[in-house]
């Protein structure tokens, strides 16, 4: 193993204080431009994000983590992350109510279904599978995407409760 390779392998450990350079190694670093450049790269790499870490509110994060762990159904932050989802769903419900105020089925080829799908499904497609599962868990029993296909079957009270629950 060349001296350059040996130094390269030890740079991380020296940077993090687990090792020290010997006099011979120091002399090599002073004379080998390639090793000196690598040493600068490693030392700079060790400093990346130092300012971010210094401003991270660690105690606050710890408090929120513990609070979220106490609430297995999900923290408010999780819900806040998906609040945007409430808007297209609520809009779809409102459109369905306007188009079919009597609550009956659409007279021509499921127009309400198309409205709901156009408004909601593109949003769902951008979610990771795990995120989608979380959304489904958060929604009330009758508010899942499958139920959106039958908004016309909901009563006014049920639609109001659905919108209220989605809007928090």
């Amino acid at each position, binding site marked *: 193993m060349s001296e350059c390779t040996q130094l*390269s392998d030890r*740079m*991380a*450990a020296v*940077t*993090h204080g*687990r090792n020290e350079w010997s006099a011979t190694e120091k002399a090599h670093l002073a004379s080998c431009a*390639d090793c000196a*450049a*690598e040493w*600068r*790269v*490693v030392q*700079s*790499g*060790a*400093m*990346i*994000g*130092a*300012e*971010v*870490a*210094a401003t*991270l*509110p*660690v*105690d606050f*994060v*710890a*408090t*929120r*983590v*513990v609070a*979220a*762990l*106490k609430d297995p159904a999900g*923290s408010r*932050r999780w819900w806040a992350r998906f609040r945007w989802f409430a808007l297209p769903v609520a809009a779809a419900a409102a459109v369905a109510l306007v188009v079919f105020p009597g609550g009956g089925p659409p007279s021509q080829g499921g127009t309400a279904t198309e409205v709901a799908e156009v408004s909601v499904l593109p949003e769902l497609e*951008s979610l*990771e599978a795990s995120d989608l599962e979380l959304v489904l868990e958060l929604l009330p029993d009758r508010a899942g995407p499958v139920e959106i296909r039958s908004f016309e079957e909901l009563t006014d009270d049920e639609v109001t409760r659905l919108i209220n629950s989605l809007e928090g």
Partner: protein
Amino acid sequence: MIELQPAGDPSDAALVGAWQAGDQRAATILVRRHAAALGRFLYGAGAPPEAVEDLVQETFIKAFRGLDGWRGEASFRSWLFRIGSNLRKDHFRRERGRQVVQLEDTDLPSAADPQGEAEASETGCRIEGGLATLPRLQREVFLLRAQQGMEYDEIALALGTTAGAARVHYHHAVKRLKELIA
């Protein structure tokens, strides 16, 4: 008896066990112990500064909720970094199109700095910018090695690769970064 680290603090494994037994203070200690390092890694890996806090929080929540899946072959820290890396990937997919690493004004060399400090700061800026251009595994291996001081076997466990592959990724990354500061 709770296993102690050399400094007399409880080990991560002991704290995990205590948390699983219902001691919430153990979770707080683990977050305090690892949050800053995790935040630095996530930032270096490309998380925007404003997203780091949330990603750190999500990583710990996911880690604690999935502790049954931690077999103890990897350290708690490298397991955390693995979860954090995956969450950052998900975050990047959602935010696709954004700049990977954003340099802040505070990262730029100040004209009032002594020359040596200014050069070091300029090198740091180039390294940060260069990291953003590296493939993900090269970037993350470099960070775990240079920023976090991990050995290759621990890096391999954190990133789901082999120690040999981690060594190759590291050397490719260093070669590219050296060219940037030449």
